[in-house]
């Protein structure tokens, strides 16, 4: 009997449950898809170093899943609370008829059970279907070759989804039982009769609050952009974040009053069609929903930043590699290790011979496998530290950036060596006179610092030779291959100046004598195999190859992308669902209002337009502010992650916009259609 009632209840309130169902199904599907990635990656044919990254990614994804489960759990309980509120009257009638609270709890228990089962089944089916598409994306991300399409069903992800969601549904059941046991009959029956009090805010107070919060927000924006250099420790970012959150709240609070005042003063607009009605609807509700709007705005902001950040990191990593890893291999070895350094005598001996000789001793034939070989030295001396090269700028820099290492030795390279390297790397060659130096750098932050000293013409002294800067700014370039910009500054000086300088390291760059990827991989494997040679423990030579850089970088990029997508989409769904549920839960009030408007003869088209605008404003308001936040948020991300480059930002912003339009816009459309259905005449 009770079970039957539950089924009928659900069927009857399907209209109200649409968004709830939709969200649950999406939640289940996404949860499954991202947890199923693990089983998809197992199938892929990739190298072992990629496997390590994939392993890391999978464990991070399952960690993030716990966090996601919390968000979804919160969302489900929140959504459930909305639906319960709408049904107060129904419960009131059950109670008046003499049904016990225990039985009402039981009805709710069955309802949650049915809703839970259906959403899990549908969600898992949808998830399994979509995860086949995902597997293509996964393979594409890791640049693995998909020899044939394979249908993957991850039973572990399925079980995990079942467990997590069961826990959430059980929590909802407990929550419902608690709520039912607490409620009073009189409140239930009168629940709908409480008339709404509309409090208009004092417009002057609104203006003041608005100005104060906009300036606070402006300050927060400045903190993360113009004043970003002051941000030396991680905790300092908390101030603009807190400021931003609080001022977001007060902007919504004051704006609702201000906008209404503004439109009311424009009488011709205000008293046109249903405009006055729409605006009042909006302002009467924003009084009660300012808080949730703030939360939604901040969640959207987070979503936009995470999505565009993650996508652009991946994109720029791949594109960076083309320029930052121009040759197949780079080997470097610390030179001239001093006898009292604590290293074994063999290593100290090895540090006196050249890289190619070491390779020879390792049993690797450089002539046979390498072409375009360049061998050169980098020099460094404890007499010339970073602080010595900054000249008069040093004092102000210490005040501004006390956390930087000013006591590290600077690195030098001979002009001729650098130009040989530049030619191979495809960089512009540089020329210095006998008394000149040039700094090569590709980290924006350090370039800025060094430019300040170069502008002053700060001289440096090497081996009693005084050099002055040729240019008043750094030249873009690098020596070490890497997946991102890491060159904080290397000095290019005339060759003869360095003759008596201690060598820091010797570097050998080369291309493989190979035509195909397979041959290159073979040579690479041979180099890796030297690790097992008996001489290996007598040297501390290090290699970084194009292939390994590529693999680790696509792995890292894919990892960031997946986690970003996962979090971003969940946040997006959560915020859109909250908005949609809030709008729909108010549709009962609206129903009466629209019925009245219809009675006095308002056109159906006009009513739909008013409804569309009303919901549109509610969805747009937080989004607009979130977008403004994001402009500065992304700028900050670009600054923080500048080693990754910003070349691909536009593309990733467009992709983010696409995802948001699809999900957020979809929720908007469903909300509008459901509301339209609710206000429809019988």
């Amino acid at each position, binding site marked *: 009997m009770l079970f039957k009632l539950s089924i009928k209840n659900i069927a009857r309130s399907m209209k109200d449950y649409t968004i709830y169902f939709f969200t649950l199904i999406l939640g289940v599907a996404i949860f499954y898809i991202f947890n199923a990635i693990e089983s998809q990656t197992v199938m892929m044919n990739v190298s072992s170093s990629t496997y390590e990254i994939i392993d890391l990614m999978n464990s991070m994804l399952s960690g993030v899943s716990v966090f996601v489960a919390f968000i979804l759990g919160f969302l489900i309980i929140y959504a459930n609370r909305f639906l319960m509120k709408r049904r107060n009257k129904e419960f009131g009638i059950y109670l008046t008829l003499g049904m016990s609270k225990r039985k009402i709890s039981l009805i709710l228990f069955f309802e949650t059970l049915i809703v839970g089962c259906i959403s899990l089944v549908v969600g898992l089916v949808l998830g399994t279907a979509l995860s086949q598409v995902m597997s293509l994306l996964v393979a594409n991300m890791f640049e693995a070759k998909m020899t044939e399409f394979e249908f993957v069903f991850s039973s572990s992800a399925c079980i995990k989804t079942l467990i997590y969601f069961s826990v959430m549904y059980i929590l909802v059941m407990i929550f419902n039982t608690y709520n039912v046991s607490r409620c009073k009959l009189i409140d239930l029956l009168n629940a709908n009769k409480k008339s*709404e009090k509309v409090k208009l805010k004092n417009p002057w107070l609104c203006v003041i609050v608005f100005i104060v919060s906009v300036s606070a927000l402006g300050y927060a924006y400045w903190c993360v952009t113009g004043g970003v250099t002051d941000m030396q420790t991680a905790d300092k970012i908390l101030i603009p974040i807190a400021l931003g959150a609080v001022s977001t709240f007060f902007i919504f609070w004051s704006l609702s009053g201000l906008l209404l005042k503004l439109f009311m003063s424009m009488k*011709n607009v205000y008293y046109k069609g*249903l405009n*006055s*009605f729409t605006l*009042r609807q909006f302002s009467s509700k924003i009084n009660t929903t300012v808080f949730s709007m703030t939360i939604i705005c901040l969640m959207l902001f987070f979503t936009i930043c995470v999505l565009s950040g993650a996508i652009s990191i991946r994109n720029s990593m791949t594109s960076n590699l083309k320029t930052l890893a121009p040759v197949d291999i780079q080997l470097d070895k610390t030179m001239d290790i001093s006898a009292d350094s604590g290293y074994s005598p063999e290593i100290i001996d090895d540090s006196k011979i050249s890289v190619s000789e070491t390779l020879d001793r390792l049993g690797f034939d450089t002539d046979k496998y390498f072409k375009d070989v360049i061998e050169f030295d980098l020099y460094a001396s404890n007499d010339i530290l970073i602080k010595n090269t900054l000249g008069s700028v040093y004092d102000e820099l210490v005040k501004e950036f006390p956390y930087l290492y000013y006591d590290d030795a600077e690195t030098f390279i001979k002009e001729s060596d650098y130009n040989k390297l530049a030619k191979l790397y495809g960089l512009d060659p540089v020329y210095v006179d006998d008394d000149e130096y040039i700094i090569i750098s590709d980290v924006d932050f350090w370039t800025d610092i060094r430019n300040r000293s170069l502008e002053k013409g700060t001289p440096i002294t090497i081996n009693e030779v005084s050099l002055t800067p040729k240019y008043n700014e750094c030249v873009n370039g690098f020596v070490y291959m890497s997946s991102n910009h890491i060159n904080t500054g290397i000095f290019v000086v005339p060759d003869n100046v360095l003759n008596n300088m201690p060598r820091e390291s010797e570097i050998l760059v080369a291309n493989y004598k190979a035509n195909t990827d397979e041959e290159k991989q073979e040579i690479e494997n041979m180099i890796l195999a030297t690790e097992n040679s008996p001489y290996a423990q007598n040297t501390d030579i290090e290699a970084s190859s194009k292939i390994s850089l590529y693999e680790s970088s696509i792995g890292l990029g894919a990892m960031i992308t997946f986690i970003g997508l996962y979090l971003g989409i969940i946040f997006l769904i959560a915020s859109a669902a909250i908005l949609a549920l809030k709008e729909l839960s108010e549709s009962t009030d609206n129903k009466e209002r629209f019925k009245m408007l219809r*009675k*006095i003869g308002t*056109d*159906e088209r006009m009513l739909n337009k008013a409804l569309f605008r009303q919901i549109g404003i509610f969805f747009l308001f937080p989004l607009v502010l979130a977008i403004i936040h994001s402009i500065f948020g992304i700028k900050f991300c670009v600054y923080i992650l500048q080693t990754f480059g910003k070349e691909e930002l536009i593309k990733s912003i467009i992709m983010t916009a696409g995802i948001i339009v699809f999900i957020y816009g979809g929720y908007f459309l469903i909300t509008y259609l459901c509301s339209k259905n609710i206000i429809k005449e019988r």
Partner: protein
Amino acid sequence: MESILKIYNVEKYYGSRSSLTKAIDNISFEVDKGEFVAIMGASGSGKTTLLNCISTIDRVTSGHIFVGGEDITKLKGNSLNKFRREELGFIFQDFNLLDTLTAYENIALALSIQNVSASEIARRVDKVAKELDIKDVLKKYPYQMSGGQKQRVASARAIITNPKLVLADEPTGALDSKSAKMLLERFDYLNKELEATILMVTHDAFTASYASRVIFIKDGKIFNELHKGDDSRKEFFDKIIDVVTLLGGDLSDAL
């Protein structure tokens, strides 16, 4: 006299063939321009159904209703809405004001959905507020007003469009006797001074005694009809009570 409302053999049935309820059973009458007509009847007599049919909220099963010569039973969709907003004024028992709007905005809404300019709206709201004595509540919200004030605001909304016909469904139903009296005096004023044609449904003899004519309905049929003629309101009230007594005990709760 020109007749504003012509009801012609109207029938309204509810239910299926096996259990048929005749809410309105072949009713015909006319209302002339400038008349103030009350329809009286017990609960379930069909008076509200009749009003709903006239106001096009409900549809008749058979018969015709003419408002100003136009057969409104043939109207559909947006022309129905147009008819409602241009030719009719509504006053409901539970006021039906929008709780989010002020009194002024509630009244203005009736005009703004007809695309009347803001200055014209201001002029007309001002005028109607004076006539209904609600100038000092124009800035208030429904929840800040008394029932009588709310009903006068609703009345202002109903007549501001200069409708051919004002329909009132138990307008005093939710009011205390003092507010009811005040409202009815306003109705009287609107009827006599502004020549508004009013059709009011009520089960209260006191309320009905303000009308110039009372039509009694019982079980969906016209039972009796009374004209005020030259009687005083008190005499007319006594006559109504007599008919009510004939009708049965249901209406004995009159004042």
